[in-house]
Structures are given as C-alpha cells and as structure tokens.
C-alpha cells in the first residue's frame, strides 16, 4: 500500500477519533471504549508488523504487553518511579525481552517461532502468579491494584479527567502508529519486502535477515511494552488473567479484520473489533465461542481484511506492504 494511502487512512481514522469527544465527551462509557480502541490499535499494529509484514510468526505479543504493563506498574508502586519515566523504562525493558526471545527464534522456521513465543506466553502466567512473581512484586494471583495514574507537571490523567486522558492516549497511539508507518515505508521496509519475497537473493545483496528481524522484535516489543505500561497506568489494575486466550484471540481477530500484513488495517481492525466486542457483551460466555468462530470465518472469507480495496491487484497472491 502506498504511503499516501496509509497516511490517509491513519489520518481519517484518528481524525474521526479526535473529533468524537465533542459529541460524546460526557458519556464516560463510550470514552472508555475509545481509549481501549486506541490502545489495542497499537498492540494489533505491532503484532501485524511482526507477523504479516516481517513474516515472523510470533505469538508473544500479548506476553510483551503484559510484561510492559507489569514492569511499569511494579516500578511505580514498589520503587515510586514517576509513571512517565516508568513507562519509558518498561518500554526499554520489554524491548530487551523482545531481543532475548528473538535471538533463539530467528534461527527457526514458522511453527517453531510460534510455539516458542506461545510457550513464553504460557510460561508467563504461572511465573507472575507464583513465587517468582510475588518476589518481584507482581502481586501473585491478586495482581496489581494500586497503579498510580500518569501525571505530567502535576496534572493527573485518569478516568476522572476522561477527555484530556483521551487526548493523551490519542497522542501516544498516533505517535506509535506514525513510527510504524515510517518504519514500514523506510529502507527497513523495502528490505523486509525483499526478504519476504526471496530471502536468499536479498541476503546476497547484503541485507542481513537476522539483523532486521531482531530490530523488528526490538521495535515492536518496545512499542507494545510502552502501550502496555500506559494501559496499566490508565486502568490502575493488572492481573495475570490478561494472559487468557480471550485477549489473544481478540487481537488476532483485529489483525484479520484489518488485513494481515496490510498496515494500517490493524488499526481499523482494532477500532471495529473493540466496538463490536462491546456490542457482543450481552453474549456472556458465548462471546469467546463467537470470537473463535469469527477467526475461522475471517481467515477463510476475508484474506485481506477490510483494507482489501486499497491494495494493488497482485496483493492476493503474495502480501505486499
């Protein structure tokens, strides 16, 4: 997808978001949903860049999100670090974890990466819940309950001032989206397309698959960690239940709806799915069932998601950026 189209889609989507508070600013419920949209948009986009764009089949995105959230939360609670700083530290920490996980993964083929990262995800839950977690301050099965909100120059961004908090979220989310957009369209991006089309040829040109893939791990984990931390400071509570398959599958649906590998489809996917999910809330226990069925149907029916019409004709045979 061309840079122009990407920018237009992002501009319109965020633009609409920016304007909505004028109409619904006092409906707390809707504002909350919109904030969630913005947060998940970043996570979904990062995951999309990993899987769809860089072709690294990682299932660890949620784990990184949770790591960032917990890191910042613990720093803020146990060590009294100001949220803004702790968020940044959490981002760097998560980036480091990303590299750590990435290093062994990069030698492996498709299903192996998926399973190792999935294993990380599965191993994270008992770790946070168990003794190791408690020692680190994760709150074990109870989780973190008292994460302080972000305050800049004395102004506190919390659900009490939902509209300014919304705009802060919009700013953070948009920044992340723009970073991703520029990375995709930069030299990195071209390198990745080359790697995906033909790894041997690209490597013979001097493009190091290893280096680039590791950088993708680092960048996406960094952004995911940051937004995870942000999430923690907004909500104030964290629990290991975030690692349940619910979140995992919802994010997957977001990417599929938006179009895997076709940034910024994931952003649109996130907005649509969060809204849709709220509408499905009355389904209760059946929501997960529906979610699963949706993934299956989406993979079959919508190979390129919502952004299909914006793509060049050859997109159906092999994904382009």
């Amino acid at each position: 997808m061309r840079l122009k189209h990407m920018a237009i889609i992002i501009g319109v989507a965020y633009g609409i978001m920016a304007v909505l508070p004028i109409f619904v600013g006092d409906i707390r419920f809707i504002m909350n949903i919109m904030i969630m949209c913005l947060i998940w948009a970043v996570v979904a986009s990062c995951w999309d860049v990993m899987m769809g764009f860089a072709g690294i089949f990682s299932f660890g995105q949620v784990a990184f999100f949770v790591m960032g959230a917990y890191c910042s939360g613990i720093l803020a609670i146990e060590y009294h670090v100001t949220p803004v700083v702790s968020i940044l530290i959490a981002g760097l920490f998560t980036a480091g974890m990303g590299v750590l996980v990435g290093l062994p993964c990069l030698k492996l083929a498709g299903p192996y990466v998926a399973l190792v990262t999935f294993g990380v995800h599965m191993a994270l839950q008992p770790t946070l819940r168990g003794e190791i977690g408690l020692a680190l301050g994760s709150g074990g099965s109870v989780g973190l309950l008292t994460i302080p909100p972000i305050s800049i120059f004395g102004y506190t961004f919390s659900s009490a001032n939902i509209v300014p908090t919304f705009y802060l979220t919009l700013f953070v989310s948009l920044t992340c989206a723009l970073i991703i957009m520029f990375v995709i369209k930069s030299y990195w991006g071209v390198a990745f397309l080359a790697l995906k089309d033909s790894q041997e040829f690209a490597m013979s040109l001097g493009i190091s698959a290893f280096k680039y893939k590791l950088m993708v791990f680092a960048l996406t984990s960094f952004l995911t960690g940051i937004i995870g931390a942000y999430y923690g400071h907004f909500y104030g509570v964290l629990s290991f239940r975030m690692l349940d398959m619910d979140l995992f599958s919802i994010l997957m649906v977001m990417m599929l709806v938006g179009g895997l590998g076709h940034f910024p489809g994931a952003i649109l996917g996130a907005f649509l799915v969060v809204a849709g999910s709220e509408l499905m809330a009355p389904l209760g226990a059946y929501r997960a069932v529906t979610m699963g069925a949706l993934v299956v149907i989406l993979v079959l029916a919508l190979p390129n998601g919502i952004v299909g019409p914006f793509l060049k004709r050859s997109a159906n045979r092999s994904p382009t950026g």
Partner: protein
Amino acid sequence: MFSEDTILLFYEITDVIIAGLSTGSVYALMAVGMTLVYGVTKAFNFAYGDFFNMGGYFAWILIFGIGFQFGGYLAVLLIVLPLMFAVGYGLEKLMIAPLRKRADWENKVMMLTLGLALFLSSLYTVVFGVKMKSLPPILEGTLEVGQLVFGYQDIMIFVMSLGGILLFGWLLNNTRTGMAVKAVAQNPIGAKIVGIPKERIFAATFAISTVMVGFGGILLSQKWFINPMSGGTIMIKAWVVTALGGMGSIRGGLYAAFIIGMLEAFVGWLFGMSYGIIALFILLLATLALRPQGLMGKGE
C-alpha cells in the same frame, strides 16, 4: 538383604516407571498423529489439544450423558473413533483445503486452527461447564506379581496405545492408502505423477491424526481429568514431543514420547506435578538450541 526403605523405594520407582510408560504411550499416539500430518501436509493444527479433549468428551457423552450401557468401552470406541475420523476429514476438506491455494497458507492454517481451538475450548466450557470430568477406567483393579502391584488401568492404557500405534504402522505399510500417504510425504510431485489424489490423501491423513489424538484423549481421560481449557497445554506437549523426535519422523516421535513420558513422571514424583510444564519447556529450549531437527531429523 536390602533394607525396608530400599525395597519401598524400588516399588515407588516401578510405579513411576509404569506411569511414565502409560502416559508416554499416549504421547506416542499423539506425536505420531501430529508428525504424520505435518510430514504429509505441512499443516500445523493448533486445535490438536482440543481434539484430544473432543475424544474424551464424546466418550463422556456416551457413557454419562446418554448412559450407554451395552458393549462397554469397545462400543464407545467403535462409535467415537469413526466420529473423530469424520470430523477430521470434514474439517480438512472444508477449512484447510481452501487455504492451500493462498499465499502464506501455512500461516493462515495456523491462525485458522488457533481460532478453532478457541472456539472449541470455549464451546466445551459452555456445554460441559468448567468443572473437570473424568472417565471410568477400562479395567479396574490391580495385578500382583510377587511383591509388585500394578494397576490394570495403566497397563490397559499402555497396551491399547501401543496397539493403536502398531495398527497405524501396519496400515501405513500394507495398505494402498498408507503407501500413498508415504508417497505424498516423500515426494508430492512424484505422487501427483503416479496419479495419487493429493487432496484426498491430505484429508485422510488429517482424519487419521484426529482419530489418534481422540483415542489418546479417551485413554488418558480415565486417568486424569478433562479440563475444557486445557487444549493449549496439551497441544504444546504434543508439539514438544514431536519436535524433540523430529517433525516428520515417526520413529523419532515414538522415542521422544517415551522419553518425555518418563521425564514427566519422574519430575512429577521428585518435585511435584506443576513443575512438569517448566521441565518440558526447558527441554524444548535445549532441543531447539542444540539440535533443532530433533532426534531423528527429516524424512522417513
């Protein structure tokens, strides 16, 4: 000659070994199924663990839900196993085959089966409730050999799994379809040239693996509980076994299954059951780091 304690220890270890053998044999069933599908069709089924549970749940419905009385376990198997075959065959034809034509199809299959896994686990939770279920043992009681006491349950599980694997091996080497499966695995182009209908073989292979894992589910559900959300863990276990043995190698899968069955039994005995998964994970990482192609590497 030996002290009381040593003798008791000996009995305990024998128990652990038998437990390891019986779970190992079920893992072998599952590993063979998974490696077969991957070797032949290159598709990876994330919902594998949920098919394991499906076998258990189908059996449960027959025994407790409907109150099936006659024929005992044999009848249950005769009904559930063909059902699993049909489910597997239908699934492959309807959901996986269409994806093969697309770019990136291996990834798409992984995602589809992931969605399927979520669908199935939440469906189980809704239909059967969160409480864990278990099946009655095929044979109760114990066998006493001198001073040693063996539970029939473990023996039956071991015997039946082994039987299943041997039957599978026989089918693979002595039937036309079995040979065709091997052919597709070894050279898909060659298979096409001799006129083997690849799509049908893919579906049949997938169906066979579904039967095997469902069978495993029925067997192990007597011993352990069926937990509706356990699909993911079970799939990971099956995958670790398969990867350790080498994706695509049936013999490797067999060796690896018993190694892991024993490892789990001993770790559980020495440190407690919850460390089982961590031990597996460590083993997995070690394998990927040292010998990524597993014990027996490619081919077979």
